[in-house]
């Protein structure tokens, strides 16, 4: 926990400036798809990766669909090669296990607990959520994690974010990690918009001074200038999400973990989210948990399919997306 970068370190500030730049870029861009392709092309130039069918996110997926189905089925057995090679690990997970205690009878009271203890009843059953997860994320990679409801994605995410402690296994994190399990953590309906911005900022690790500097841009981006002194409970849900999102995209870390919560809101907001994802592509290490195979294909360098607490497939977005869609067949 003490590994986290000090807010005063020069890197922290550098990253922050970058974030403001990204926000501006996001406002100006009207065509998300075009923007994405530009970013992609740029990324390929920088990293010097061969743009083949599997690692390219720009290529039209329909073109080679026949070919890819074949590969996807193979990939369930053998993990595909890593598109970003010869690079340092950002995250390395080995043999991760996690189980939860589900209470069988009501054991939330002291009395019941004593009874259970006297009778030798455990009062809970063990529910295994993750049973041996191994994967690596290289620096600068955009990795998607997919899986059905209840497959253990969120648990994995919370383990990465250090909210849960693993039963066994190891998580090595190289750099600062900023998790977004949910937008607007700590938002309080009784506080004004302004107060909530500072509170949420503090939870993301920003100082008051840093928030002062960013405040106007956050409000401008959320398009909420006239409402900042109104209480949050008087905001519409869309306004709340917009405010939370504009704060969230300011957060900078070496590794960003994004849950699918970012995929809410209307079409315009979706556009902003997509611009944001696209802006992260290239350089920023991102782990995106999503149900949208469209997003996996568009943004991810690599994807991981989690099924029943295990890595069921790992490889190019296309392969994993197919494997995911095959789960229901």
């Amino acid at each position, binding site marked *: 926990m*003490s590994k986290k970068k000090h807010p005063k370190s020069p890197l922290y500030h550098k990253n922050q400036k970058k974030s403001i730049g990204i926000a501006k870029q996001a406002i100006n861009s009207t065509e998300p798809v075009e923007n994405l392709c530009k970013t992609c092309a740029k990324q390929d130039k920088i990293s010097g990766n061969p743009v083949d069918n599997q690692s390219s996110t720009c290529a039209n997926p329909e073109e080679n669909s026949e070919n890819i189905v074949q590969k996807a089925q193979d990939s369930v057995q053998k993990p595909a090669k890593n598109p970003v090679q010869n690079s340092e690990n950002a995250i390395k997970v080995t043999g991760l296990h996690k189980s939860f205690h589900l209470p069988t009878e009501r054991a*939330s009271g002291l009395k019941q607990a004593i009874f259970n203890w006297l009778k030798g009843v455990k009062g809970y059953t063990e529910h295994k959520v993750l049973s041996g997860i191994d994967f690596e994320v290289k620096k600068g990679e955009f990795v998607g994690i997919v899986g059905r409801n209840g497959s253990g994605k969120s648990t994995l995410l919370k383990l990465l974010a250090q909210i849960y402690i693993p039963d066994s296994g190891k998580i090595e994190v190289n750099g600062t990690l900023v998790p977004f399990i949910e937008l607007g953590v700590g938002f309080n309906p*009784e*506080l004004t918009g302004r107060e909530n911005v500072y509170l949420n900022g503090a939870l993301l690790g920003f100082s008051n001074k840093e928030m002062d500097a960013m405040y106007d841009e956050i409000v401008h981006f959320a398009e909420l200038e006239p409402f900042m002194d109104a209480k949050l409970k008087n905001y519409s849900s869309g306004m709340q999400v917009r405010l939370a999102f504009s704060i969230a995209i300011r957060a900078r870390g070496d590794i960003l973990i994004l849950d699918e919560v970012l995929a809410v809101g209307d079409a315009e907001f979706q556009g902003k989210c997509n611009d944001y994802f696209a802006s992260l592509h290239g350089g920023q290490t991102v782990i995106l948990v999503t149900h949208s195979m469209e997003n996996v294909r568009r943004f991810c360098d690599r994807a991981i399919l989690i099924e029943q607490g295990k890595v069921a497939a790992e490889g190019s977005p296309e392969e994993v997306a197919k494997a995911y869609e095959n789960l229901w067949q």
Partner: protein
Amino acid sequence: MGFPNILCQKNRILLGELVKTDFKLRYQGSILGYTWAVLRPLLMFAILYIVFAKMLNFGNDIPHYPVYLLTGTVLWNFFTECTGLGINSIVGRGDLIRKISFPKYIIVVSATSTALINLAINLCVIIIFALINGVAPTWTWLLVPFLILELYLFSLGISFLLGAINVKYRDITSIWDVLIQALFYAVPIIYPLSMVLSSGSFGALAGRIIMLNPIAQVIQDVRYTLITDATMTTWSVINNPLLRLVPFLIVIVLLIAASLFFRKKSKHFAEEV
């Protein structure tokens, strides 16, 4: 996760914001607002004063009895408020614990800080009352913050211990409510300690045991330093020099044990809360 981390800037910012939020939300939607912070102990004092000082004639032998009584009620109020907020803080902030990773003690410290702010406001009221009542200010007043720190650390120890258990067994809140009622009568707030000590051999023993309680020790010591030398303190009631240290030992041992327990349990708060 240890205490050295409290100096880390990120944690300090978070603590500051949480304290601000708690304090702002405290009297949200009430007309009198922060005035309640002062009004509550004053009203409680008024009731106790009418019943015990006027109707039952308690404290005739104690100079400045009204200030004496007010000091007791304010400090007692601080203790109940502090532990009440502290014990429920982890459960109350479950939404944060489930979504971000940060040292959990920040929650307890921020919740109890609200009570500390209220106490600071109330101490100003006590000082005004004392001056009106003709108490002469002395240098010993400067010792009061240290005694309050002792009481705060004691409350913090209780909050860490019971707050951590409360996550799993919510009965703690109800048990504590009853326990604190019993404790109120075990601390010489409304009755003068001299009344207990002079009521037979049982009373003499009970009075000494009462003074081993850190709450009683702090309240009596604050009264002694702030108001009048006529106050009976742990020092004056107990002659054994080792026993005189018992209240301090209770505070230190409880705080260390509770912190370690809290630290161990806090790893699983996110799953259990």
